[in-house]
């Protein structure tokens, strides 16, 4: 698998393999290996890697699985993501996973952790609380303790304790991973035609289903191609897409935005892979402290993160400026309280900064994109004609 086309095709297949075949094959090669599934948005995957595990992102079923049983577990006014995940759990897609992490993103994901506990899926099910106090001695201590609980959980499964060396090695690998991903985004900012938003999405989503070593190798190969000119520039506007950090938009929606004349130069689709901005300190005697510091000081902005003192709206506008984007598309999953409650204030910040914006809502299995395409197309035209 060397050509870009081969890699992209493999990524597309792997990103939406709801059996997680690749991760299960990886596990089958060593009885001390574990698979730990995690939900959006972010978990420090380094600690799982250091304990001989693979952290596999469970981003929902998208439009790839018909939901029948899952609907019997959720009322119509609850977002689509958890019903797809329950469907996967009941259909045995998640068999072979040793444990599950449910990050503190919202009450739906929080309560889903309890549903997994009640149905005894996996050997452990843990709600992973994000510290909302950012003092290193207060929130930092709490966050470190949250990580230690996960380390203990994995130890109870495979008897492997994450060591200082193992953690430092994992930090290095994930630092490389974040740098490579960021380079792709930087190239796409200048030359978005070299790699489409859909292709980028597939690459990142596949990356959370395979080992970081494999992903890094793949990212290097992709970068070797897109560092050179490829594709053809179009007369498109540049947009940042915001609000899709948890339940993922269907690929058709991302494609529709692009086809409507909008290059997506930044987004929060696979935010967990880009959560930490910059490197985590490497080769320290206390790598958990290093990961904690990164969480406290280098986290990106997100709806699950208390933002008084550094509001998300301002950070979004900064991102728009840094990416030289023409506007923002607020694209949130229906019934997503965190994204939708943030939206009005973020829109106000955009208005104050003169950044044009539009918004729409979706489900991960939305099948009709005509209206969205028209809306994005009109947005693009209006910016091209009058901005």
């Amino acid at each position: 698998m060397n050509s870009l086309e081969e890699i992209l095709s493999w990524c597309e297949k792997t990103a939406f393999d709801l059996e997680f075949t690749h991760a299960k094959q990886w596990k089958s090669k060593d009885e001390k290996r574990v698979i730990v599934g995690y939900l959006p948005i972010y978990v420090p995957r380094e600690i799982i890697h250091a304990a001989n595990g693979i952290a596999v992102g469970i981003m929902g079923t998208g439009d790839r699985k018909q939901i029948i049983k899952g609907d019997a577990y959720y009322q119509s006014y609850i977002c689509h993501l958890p019903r797809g995940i329950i469907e996967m759990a009941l259909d045995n897609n998640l068999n072979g996973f040793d444990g599950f992490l449910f990050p503190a993103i919202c009450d739906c994901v929080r309560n889903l952790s309890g549903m997994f506990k009640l149905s005894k899926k996996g050997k452990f099910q843990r709600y992973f609380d994000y510290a909302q106090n950012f003092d290193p001695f207060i929130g930092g201590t709490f966050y470190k303790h949250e990580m230690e609980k996960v380390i203990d959980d994995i130890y109870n499964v495979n008897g492997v304790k994450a060591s200082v060396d193992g953690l430092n090695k994992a930090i290095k690998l994930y630092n490389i991973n974040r740098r490579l991903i960021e380079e792709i985004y930087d190239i796409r900012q200048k030359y978005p035609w070299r790699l489409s938003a859909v292709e980028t999405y597939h690459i990142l989503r596949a990356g959370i289903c395979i080992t970081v070593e494999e992903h890094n190798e793949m990212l290097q190969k992709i970068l070797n191609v897109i560092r050179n000119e490829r594709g053809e520039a179009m007369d498109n506007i540049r947009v940042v897409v915001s609000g899709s950090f948890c339940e993922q938009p269907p690929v058709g929606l991302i494609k529709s935005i692009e086809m409507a004349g909008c290059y997506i130069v930044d987004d929060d689709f696979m935010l967990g892979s880009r959560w930490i901005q910059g490197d985590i300190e490497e080769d320290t005697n206390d790598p958990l402290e290093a990961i904690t510091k990164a969480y406290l000081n280098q986290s990106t902005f997100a709806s699950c993160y208390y933002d008084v003192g550094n509001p998300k709206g301002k950070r979004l506008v900064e991102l728009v400026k840094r990416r030289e984007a023409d506007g923002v598309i607020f694209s949130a999953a229906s019934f997503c309280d965190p994204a939708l409650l943030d939206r009005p204030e973020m829109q106000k910040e955009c208005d104050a900064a003169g950044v044009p914006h539009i918004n729409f809502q979706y489900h991960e299995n939305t099948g009709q994109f005509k209206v969205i395409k028209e809306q994005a197309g009109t947005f693009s035209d209006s910016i091209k004609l009058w901005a």
Partner: protein
Amino acid sequence: MANPKDAVKEKSMIIQKEMLAKQFNDLSKAKETGKKVCYTFVPGNLIELILSFDMLPVYPEINALQSGMRKKSGGYIKDAEKMGHSEDVCTYVKCDIGMMLNGNIGPTGEKLPEPDLLLLSYTGCFTFLKWFENLNRLYPNAEIAMLHTPYQEDGKITKEQIDYMVKQLKEEVLPKFEKVSGKKFDSARLSKLLSNSVQSEDYWVKVLQLAKIKPSPIDAYFAGVYYMGPINTAFRGSDECLEYYKELYHEIKDRAEKKLLPVTPEGEMQKERFRLVVEGPPNWTNFREFWKIFYDMGAVIVASTYTKVGGVYDLGYRQNPEEPLESLATYCMGCYTNLNLPQRVDLIEKYVKEYQADGFLINSIKSCNSFSAGQLMIMREIEQRTGVPVGFIESDLVDPRYFSYANIKNRLESYFQMLEQRKIILSQESVTV
């Protein structure tokens, strides 16, 4: 059913009415009297701490539910939606924002004072975080203090979690209180208030447990929301609160001894046909109509989870005046919506068994994912563990667009028929045996 005009106000009702009148009067004069105002939330509220600094609390979700009962919430929600809030999100938030946009007029018709301190005790509801981020932008001059309450994800409260909260209280919350109030933290005063709370909590539990008697002298949901008012909001720790619960307990004990049934807005119930446990908050926009469906059918709610959002005291927790900050931390983490799903199921199962309920009913609220996400699984678990018939209805907190009287009545009537049928079958089986 007695004639409505026969419904006599009990002494406890008068006490509560006076407490509330004084509270809102104090709030309306806060700027004149120089009293500082603290906006905070009901679950995990730190009322003893607020009172120890001589500050006045305002609860945005109480404002919202009162707006719902006064039929104002529909308009407020639409105004919030006009400024960009989605139809999909929590209607308490939208109602509160709409109320602010319309002059922040409280239930007494007077303007509520702006906050001097926003105390975000982030307990059991993720939306609280978003709500206060929004309030922070609407009241940029108010101080804001964040108290992150860890979730009981392992079904227990750990020493590390308590330490985390106590450190936040010491380093983040108390300094903000001192700055806003201009007073030093008085640990002895806080302990005194907590001692009062313990006594009120004891009486409150005794009140709730009187519903174990057959027939129950109280409705622990529809009337329960009134009974829980003082302890869950502005008064826990005060002498008036203690007086209220002492009086309430004696009144209800007296009713129980006389085998009297719950008091409703239309007088006293005459027959207890069904005993139910209810999960989830009530609908506020059509509260009376909703309640009437139940008492017309002789259905009494003997235990409810909603009345535990401000503390699950019947599981034994009491404030601890000896360790005031640790006590507040433990209190916050013990509130119902901060329990994990298995704990919630265990609690409901206990209620169904101990209160000898005939059925278990969920009122699933569109706005409240903290309660609602997972309720269908809770329902299945309870059915399996207890064997009682379970029912499920849907409404909303304060959005009148989501209360469909005919649908709810229809479903409840079918549910009551099922309960009736089961009673007949069970009585026939016991005769055969």
